């Protein structure tokens, strides 16, 4: 009788411990799902405007914003590739040095670009248009492109009011953008008018990009079933379930990949092997911070709709430390199975390569002998790595199809190409 009682106590304790572990895992799961709406952005008065989003969607897919009319935002953020590009590093007009991140869920990030050089989504959207590695155009030509297209002009005007008289090439020269003599030759008011219109393009693109939320994944469906009290384990594979246990436990992924976006939204240096050992090391957040401080389109700047907002104040309070040099923003793991190659310079082609790196840290580069790394090799078995990978693959989910293409409402004419 005593033995039965003791066994009962043991079994009850074991069941209780198992239940506690499951409860902890469920609590952890619920901290990761669902994806909430992105935080508000008071610096963009058009962020929630459906009309601006439609206009922004049109701009996103429009190569007319590039110098030669052949590169659009969607070149490097391809909706068929979860808004990444499948390439090691970005290739616009020229080849860059940084991997193109997905923009699914980008509106959740407090810092934009992998080095955090922008503090709002609208200011991020403006960067590539004038970057010679990417779209290589100018703000003046971008605005002229809008003015020259009937649909774009109509939508812009309805949203933001009249455009500057960009057909006047004496006042608004071709290729005019800051740093170029054509720009310096322009009058201050004309410069202001162009920049104001240019900023509006960015704000419209943000309105569209805010809609690009990661879709419901198998993981989200399982978490929803927990909430519903069913905990339908069949919604994820057994391997994915085991992988989630590792993810939330021994793998330590949660140190940086936590919250609904599976990212702390901040910057870390994993001492990754460089893509090109002979090339200069990438400064990451170190340089990104300096660019942020000098940025024309800052959240607390004159082009912001709310320069005194909490968001703007927080962005201005960013700190730079020695640990930030060489660090890059923690990527979201949502849709990670679709967004290879991986890491800031596309160092790894596949997820299994990424996990193999974490497993051994082979090839890890210490820039200096006294550099310390918090990372420790996982030393997992192949089965455990496979389970982790299965879990990561359960994080894929597409946004609504209507957002994945150029809007159909169009007059059918191709936009004119900007003059060089």
């Amino acid at each position: 009788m005593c033995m039965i009682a003791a066994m009962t106590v043991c079994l009850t304790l074991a069941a209780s411990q198992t239940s506690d572990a499951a409860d902890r895992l469920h609590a952890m799961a619920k901290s990761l799902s669902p994806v909430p709406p992105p935080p508000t952005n008071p610096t963009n008065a058009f962020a929630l405007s459906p009309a601006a989003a439609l206009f922004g969607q049109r701009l996103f897919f429009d190569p007319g914003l590039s110098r030669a009319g052949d590169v659009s935002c969607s070149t490097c953020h391809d909706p068929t590739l979860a808004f990444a590009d499948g390439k090691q590093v970005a290739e616009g007009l020229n080849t860059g040095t940084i991997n193109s991140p997905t923009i699914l869920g980008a509106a959740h990030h407090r810092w934009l670009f992998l080095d955090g050089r922008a503090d709002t989504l609208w200011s991020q959207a403006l960067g590539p248009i004038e970057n010679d590695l990417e779209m290589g155009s100018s703000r003046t030509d971008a605005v002229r492109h809008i003015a020259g297209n009937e649909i774009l002009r109509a939508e812009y005007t309805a949203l933001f009011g009249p455009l500057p008289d960009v057909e006047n090439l004496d006042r608004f020269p071709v290729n005019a953008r800051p740093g170029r003599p054509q720009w310096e030759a322009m009058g201050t008011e004309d410069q202001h008018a162009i920049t104001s219109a240019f900023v509006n393009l960015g704000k419209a693109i943000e309105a569209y990009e805010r809609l690009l939320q990661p879709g419901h994944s198998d993981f989200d469906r399982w978490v929803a079933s927990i909430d519903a009290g069913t905990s339908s384990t069949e919604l994820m594979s057994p391997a994915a379930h085991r992988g989630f246990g590792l993810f939330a436990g021994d793998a330590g992924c949660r140190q940086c990949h936590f919250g609904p976006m599976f990212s702390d939204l901040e910057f870390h240096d994993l001492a990754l092997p460089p893509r090109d050992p002979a090339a200069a090391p990438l400064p990451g957040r170190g340089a990104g911070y300096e660019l942020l401080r000098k940025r024309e389109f800052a959240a607390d700047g004159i082009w912001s709709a709310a320069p005194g907002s909490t968001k703007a104040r927080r962005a201005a309070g960013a700190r730079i430390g020695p640990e930030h040099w060489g660090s890059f923003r923690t990527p979201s793991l949502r849709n990670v199975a679709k967004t290879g190659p991986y890491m800031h310079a596309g160092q790894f082609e596949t997820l299994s390569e990424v996990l193999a790196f974490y497993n051994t840290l082979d090839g890890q580069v210490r820039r200096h002998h006294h550099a310390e790394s918090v990372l420790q090799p996982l030393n997992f078995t192949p089965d455990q790595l496979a389970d982790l990978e299965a879990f990561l693959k359960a994080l894929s989910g597409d946004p609504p199809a209507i957002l994945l293409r150029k809007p159909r409402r169009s007059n059918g004419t191709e936009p004119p190409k900007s003059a060089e």
Partner: protein
Amino acid sequence: MILVLVCASQADPIGLWVSTHEDLGGVHAIAAIPTTDEVAVLNAESGTLRMGLSPESEILDLSRSLHQPLGLAIAATGRIYVADTGHHRVMYFTPEGAMIGGFGGAGDEPFQMQHPHAIDLSDALAVVADTGHNRIQLFQIGGQHIRNIEGDTIGLNRPEGVALDANGHIWIADTQNHRVLCVDQHGDIIHAIGSWGTFPGQFMEPSGIDAKDGRVVVTDRLNHRVQIFDMETAALLESWGMHAVYPRQGEGKVHYPADAALLSGGDVVIAEPFEERAQRFGTGGAEIEPPSLGPRGVQSHFGPVAATDGRFFCTWEPELRAIHVFDLDRKTPLRLSTFGEPGEAAGQIGHLTAIDIDAANNRIWAVDAGNHRIHEWTISPPPPDKPRFDPGMATLRRSVPLPIAGPGELLHTNDKLIYLDQAGNTAWQIAGTSEHTEIELPLGRDPRAAVLCESTGNTQPPGAILDGIDKTIHLYGSWPPADNRASTISLAELIDPVDFAQTHDGSFVVVDRSGHRIHRFGIDGTHLNAWGERGSDHGQLWRPAAVVVDHHNRVIVLDHGNHRAQMFEPDGTWIMTFGAGRAWTRRPALQETD
């Protein structure tokens, strides 16, 4: 291949290793010789100047005029200018080495100096890094004072390097601000480069600097590398060097570079006093090996300060700006904590020059010459029978301003904390407030270290001070000492005595840094024994920097150049070698233990 980190604007990287020149002694200063396009290297410890890098080069003995000289410049006429650091002045000599004159001198007048570390020249101008006064002094070439660029106007913090470029601009290695400045001759800043860190373009204690032919070269001491900048744009052109993987490794590996000279053809020669060598780099150099991106395990860069009390031994690691605390009552010393926030704000660690620990009251103090403060921590050590590493073991208790904070010695008695400030040649009784009391002590001319003697009998003097210039230990009958010197111990046979401690039998162990040896003297001055030789094996030493005696009467030597500590019996028998993460001992057998 030398690690060339940034060479975007350089078709031919210049950071290729050309040659290594060894056995040069404590070569803290190096300068181009305009008449020969060779370099001269100054041995700070012997006071000799070698007019070239080859073994056959002429050697000028300037030692009669100099003490610990750290700066060198040679005029177009061949006249030799030396920053005579230990005497707080500049001396100049004929090309043959005959002393002509000098300027400066100890004091706080505008033309006086405190431990000047560097000098550079143009045809008409001499600029001096007046390191201890945190300023740059401008003189006419003959020594007439022109003006100062005061540190408080541009925020200098112990500048150790200075160079004049062809535009007449002054480049400053602003050492404890971890940056390089370019200013005009009135102190207006033209360029400010860098911040504390390891990334190319950042610095950790920039030390030497030279400017020539459109380039500026900087020795980045704690990053063990050399960086080259464009003189006009201040853009980083190139950065090379990496800490040695193996002891004494050269051929492109760089170790604590102190100074650099640019030659007319663009080659760079650097001085590495730690390795007693110089290395030459240039476009015509050899590609010797792939970049070694940093070994694991070379992480015990113990700084030149140490203290022990009870079961604790503490030192600091300048590269991390952190303090290590070890438990000595283990089979091998066990690291209990590494703590300290790096930074320039109050309460953060800049550059420590002295440390002390009080085991009975769980206190650690450190003098921070970088941030001009003395910090006090409370420690919560684990019980002796349950030791464990705890990065949160120490909590900052107070951080008190200490305006004069150069190298020195920190001592605590039951009720007093005293700092012997070697730079100011003064002693301060530290208060809990900033109102410290300057106290009159017969410090001698170069008070490098002091001990409060163990109470082992009536014959023991209460305290002793080591004078680096006189090479003497002065024993005093009271502490704090009045001018009642009881006796002296001569250290004349030592090359560079830098620290000492007292064993339990009353004898003194003295560190001879340049001699790479430890000497033990009886209280009556008798030389009892000595041990150590230059090398990296167990029992050998490489530029030892500090010594303490623990409560087991074991002599712990901070073997600075080998990045480790070693423990000996007072008779010189080696007991063990240890670092932050490992130890070797023959007790019971030679083995590695964690």
